[in-house]
């Protein structure tokens, strides 16, 4: 187990460096100059521009810039400063991350509870009416793109029925986050429900299920422990990769409901060529992804004792 974790951690290092380098190169190949952008419509003095570029380290070779940036993050937890405002990126992210985390956590809880719930109902009644209804419902959810779903919810519940406010206010109350969270988690909910359903329907026919029923265990225990535990592996895999996706997917949802989170910052920094902010954010997302995928692999061993990591 310990050796497995160490090996996985070592494997993460090249992936982490590769991914951040790739995004760094992509961001810095963007046309346009963030420093020239500081001057607006005025023609800037070339000497001043050169000075600012030098102070920001933008005149160094790109690999050296990457090295400086990454060593700053690793050694001092310094993500650099935003070019336009001069604020440290850690400050900007510190304001926005809690909001997005709250949104993502709500969405995650929503997809976990309703996704697994619907999946269990469909799996236990495989081939019957409830199963078909749930399959068609999830198929529809998967086909409607997230931004369309967002506008449908906004039109129906905010404009027609007036149950929710169309936009989230500046206080970012938890109650206002429900509609954005439903939109954000909707797609994953459908996937979770279908995965749970397939997995359960398949395992219902397994030998250990027959054994458990034959030795007279109560139905609740057969389904709740024997069936659930064995059916959860693919679901857990999906849920784990989904945590990072939820935070990245917030770009669209936050825009629709005017949530002031990470999504807005991502969008703005792409438009304004704010390399430091964007790379910093992606670095965080990549770390989240790498760590969750390791945790999931370790969770397999908990769910299925046959899986051992030497």
């Amino acid at each position: 187990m310990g050796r497995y974790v160490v090996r996985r951690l070592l494997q993460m290092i090249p992936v982490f460096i590769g991914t951040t380098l790739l995004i760094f190169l992509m961001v810095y190949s963007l046309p346009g100059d963030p420093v020239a952008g500081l001057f607006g419509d005025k023609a800037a003095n070339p000497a001043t521009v050169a000075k600012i570029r030098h102070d920001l380290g933008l005149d160094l070779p790109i690999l050296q810039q990457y090295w400086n940036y990454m060593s700053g993050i690793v050694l001092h937890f310094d993500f650099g400063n935003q070019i336009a405002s001069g604020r440290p990126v850690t400050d900007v992210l510190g304001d926005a991350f809690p909001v997005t985390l709250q949104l993502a956590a709500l969405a995650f809880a929503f997809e976990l509870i309703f996704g697994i719930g619907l999946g269990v109902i469909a799996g236990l009644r495989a081939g019957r009416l409830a199963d078909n209804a749930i399959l068609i419902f999830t198929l529809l959810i998967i086909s409607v793109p997230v931004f369309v779903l967002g506008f449908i919810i906004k039109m129906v519940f905010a404009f027609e029925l007036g149950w929710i406010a169309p936009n989230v206010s500046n206080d970012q109350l938890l109650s206002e986050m429900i509609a954005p969270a439903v939109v954000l988690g909707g797609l994953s909910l459908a996937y979770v429900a279908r995965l749970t359903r397939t997995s359960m329907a398949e395992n219902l026919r397994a030998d250990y299920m027959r054994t458990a029923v034959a030795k007279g265990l109560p139905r609740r225990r057969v389904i709740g422990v024997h069936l659930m535990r064995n059916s959860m592996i693919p679901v857990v895999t999906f849920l784990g990769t989904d945590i990072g996706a939820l935070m990245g997917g917030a770009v669209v949802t936050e825009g629709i409901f005017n949530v002031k989170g990470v999504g807005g910052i991502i969008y703005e920094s792409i438009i304004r060529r704010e390399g430091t902010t964007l790379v910093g954010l992606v670095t965080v997302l990549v770390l989240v992804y790498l760590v969750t995928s390791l945790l999931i692999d370790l969770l397999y061993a908990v769910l299925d004792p046959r899986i051992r990591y030497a």
Partner: protein
Amino acid sequence: MPDVTKTVAAVEDAVAPPSAAQPAPAKNKDKARSLWGDAWQDLRRNPYFLVSSVLIFILLVITAFPSLFTSASPTVGDLVHHFNGKPELGKVGSEGWLGYDGQGRSVYARLIYGTRASVIVGICVTLIVTVIGSIMGMIAGYFGGVVDAVLSRITDIFFGIPFLLGAMVVLQSFTERTVWVVVFALAFLGWTQITRVMRGAVITIKQADYVHAAKALGAGTGRILLRHIMPNAMAPVIVVATIALGGYISAEATLSYLGLGLSSPTISWGVDISAGVNQIRVAQHILLYPSIMLSLTVLAFIMLGEAVRNALDPKLR
């Protein structure tokens, strides 16, 4: 655990319930069918397959001959009709039956002409991704060892970048964003999924007796890969690719909606939806109809993919 389980698409599941309850296909005297022949027999009876293939056929006809469906121009507008959204009942298919947009252009004509961008993006990205991903996956899975380690790490690197975010950055570095630029951006980040599925399938198949037999008979590496391994490893790849096709169409529309994908004068549903957002209170039809059309298209491809999966995966029978 094999890597296959970690791809999002490998994780999507089936539409129809396992038809264990149905009587097994009649054991008539015809000779043993191949996997593909068997799958075809199964598909022909699947209502999801029939519905989706009719939808996709109509979409392809619209893509090829948009002028068959409307005589109105998608780019010429008359401001007399500005935001006029009253559907003219009984005139299905006429210029104004779905209303007009802010420039007085026919929403229906734009719907018809916008099909081309979505379908082209979906099909081209899927083709490119399938070819690149299959080649990479076959090489990694078959040769193993150092080759596999290097290719797998490269795949991991691209897989680690959030898809939508990465595509936004790639697109932003092009000043003129045509359909082909969007295809490039989506394919640039999309090939990893197929690579992982292919690699997993090849690792299983290369242990098969018929591969050892081919090797013992002296078949070369190229022949083993192309004639023995590829046909048997293609099934999961085709399933994942078909389902992903719907996802790529959806991604194109999302990027266009964000203003980072296609842009005017290219006609695309995403561009129209994006334009309709500002008029969501006064002229909902501008947003509504492209959204419905987009969802239907994505639905058609996802349904096709799931029908194919049911037909090809014996476990789901």
